[in-house]
């Protein structure tokens, strides 16, 4: 039978408690706040993206649903986001649906946990709730209380990747 020193036995218990606390925290936030990695798999024909109903240029942008949640439909392309400027309210559930007609892009919004790859052929979906108190630390605060934060592409997509950006205006809760 394997011999385990008393100190190692104690350390195994300590490690067990640490793992239990970390897993417990992750499970708690997963069930209580639905915090987990986006796992949506939805395909789209990238070559005909502009012809689809959802990603047609007229239908892009911000839509408020009847339940008060917000839907943002974006197209990430070389080298920009369409629409370039979006306005969404803080503290409300927001769903981002993003697709690309060309190459691999990223969507990263500072001050939030929104950070996803936009892969050709797939629709990237991220559900989030924007915390106004946090984005205000990362963006420009206007007199009316709105905060503007940049929207970045964080996957190298070509020679002008560094010019690819947009902006998101967060409106205060009240």
């Amino acid at each position, binding site marked *: 039978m394997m011999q385990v020193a*008393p*100190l190692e036995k*104690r*350390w195994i218990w*300590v*490690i067990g408690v*640490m793992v239990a*606390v*970390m897993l417990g*925290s*992750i499970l708690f*936030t997963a069930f209580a*706040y*639905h*915090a*987990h*990695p*986006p796992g949506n798999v939805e395909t789209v024909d990238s070559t005909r993206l502009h012809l689809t109903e959802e990603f047609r240029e007229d239908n892009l942008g911000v839509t408020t649903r009847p339940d008060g949640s917000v839907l943002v439909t974006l197209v990430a392309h070389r080298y920009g986001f369409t629409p370039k400027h979006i306005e969404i309210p803080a503290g409300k559930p927001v769903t981002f649906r993003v697709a690309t007609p060309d190459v691999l892009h990223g969507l990263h919004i500072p*001050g*939030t*946990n*929104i950070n996803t790859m936009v892969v050709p052929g797939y629709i990237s979906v*991220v*559900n*989030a*709730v*924007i*915390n106004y108190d*946090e984005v205000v630390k990362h963006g420009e605060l206007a007199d009316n209380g709105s905060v503007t934060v940049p929207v970045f592409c964080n996957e190298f997509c070509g020679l002008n990747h560094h010019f690819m950006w947009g902006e998101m205006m967060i409106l205060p809760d009240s």
Partner: protein
Amino acid sequence: MTADECGGILLQGLLLPGNFSITSATLHDKEMLVSKLTRKEEQKILESPPKGTFVLMLVFAALFMVCWLLLYFGRYMVLGPIN
């Protein structure tokens, strides 16, 4: 009393230049120079669990957990949950 009678190990042949030389010494004599503990006390210490090591490990574990919880709840979750 010979070295064997003392229960020690004979160290010899350590010759120094000039007129100085150490011909023999016992491990028991050397231990007596650095430690005032009896053999029984030393044996008790050697056989007891390493409390200091465990305390150090507990301190590391506590620091690790505090930092992890701060990052998870204080830096990650505070930005708003995503799924």
